[in-house]
């Protein structure tokens, strides 16, 4: 997933000394930095929760369950699918925030009380920790997944 403008790789590694000079730093719009190194992500659960609220821990649960899959098709198109707690599949896009779950609709779109849901956060965390599952599907299957009319 391409990081949106509010979650960009920081040019100034203010906290690099805390997590090693080779760790990548991502900065979010609240100006809180959290390191990308897999070990440090778990140690910084408190920071994640501070920034993202209760969905941070729920997202980490999804990460632990290896719930995120990156679908790719021969055309090069990609999308993420997340298995929710109820077993339902949610399709998220690479370049912008969208999730069909009720929490995204209510908390993000309607109440404007959050930037993302646990599914989208789980995608970011899985990408950062390199634990995203990979699956190849046909172009037609990809079109069905993207339009919400079907899936693998």
């Amino acid at each position: 997933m391409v990081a949106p403008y509010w979650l960009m790789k920081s040019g100034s590694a203010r906290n690099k000394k805390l997590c090693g000079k080779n760790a990548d730093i991502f900065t979010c719009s609240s100006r809180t930095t959290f390191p990308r190194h897999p070990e440090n992500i778990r140690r910084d659960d408190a920071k994640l929760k501070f920034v993202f609220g209760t969905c941070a821990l729920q997202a980490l649960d999804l990460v632990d369950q290896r719930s995120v899959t990156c679908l790719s098709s021969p055309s090069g198109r990609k999308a993420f699918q997340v298995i929710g707690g109820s077993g339902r599949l949610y399709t998220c896009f690479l370049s912008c925030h969208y999730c069909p779950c009720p929490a995204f609709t209510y908390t993000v779109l309607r109440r404007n009380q959050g930037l993302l849901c646990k599914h989208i956060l789980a995608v970011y965390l899985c990408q950062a920790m390199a634990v995203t599952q990979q699956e190849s599907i046909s172009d037609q299957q990809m079109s069905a997944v993207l339009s919400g009319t079907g899936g693998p």
Partner: protein
Amino acid sequence: MTDILTLVFRTLSSQTGQNKDPSAGPPPPAPHSNTLVVGEHRLSRSVLLLAAVTAASELGVRVAFFAQTQIQSLPECLQRCSKITFSYPRTLEELLQQVASLHEFPCPPSLIIIDRLDGFLRGAVASSHAGFHSGDESRAAHLAALLCDTAAFLTEVLEKRGSSSAPCRTIASFLSDADSGQESRDPSAMDPILDVLDRYFQARCTLDQDRSYEAAAAAAQEAWHVYLSGTKIPDDLEDGPTLAQEWKLFIFPEGLMEFKLV
């Protein structure tokens, strides 16, 4: 996308007393912007068609134009134009499927145009009531996000091919319930669907009819204010400059359109 709209307005601007310097006015936002045209349907459709023609003829790019109702009075030149593909999905589901399948095309479009998003979104409601209902926010977000993601993907494809048609842009028109004149709606209430769309469309082109005497003074049939607003995609956490352009549109009895930069 506002770069194409600005090109449309400048192309149709008056020669007399008009600064034709391309650098006149503030710079448009990055062409990666998606633009939402908000205003009366008849005029917004005209603006979208002008954008399609301008993109195909001036920039030589492929255009995918989606509308729910067939355009009856399509000029013959447009019908013969091979660079513009017109599609008429009847439902939101059909529109989603057609947009989602654009990645399958060997020659993808560089401009995706959706006429009357409100028609597609309102038609998705099972209820017989007019207007939008709960759950529509998710459908609106899905369609808008799909458009954004599709444009981003097609931009990558075009750039990898070294095509001068990159980036892929999106423009859509929308008429809110408030602007449609529904008397039962509180005019001061925000349109929740427009709020959702604003999350995904970085730029907005607002069409507002001028009901003063300015049209008559210009010997025109109608006069409209055209506002271009939006922001550049921030880079390195710095906010880009805000886009703010105002144009005046005069429509003459013969159907001629003339834009003037204010």
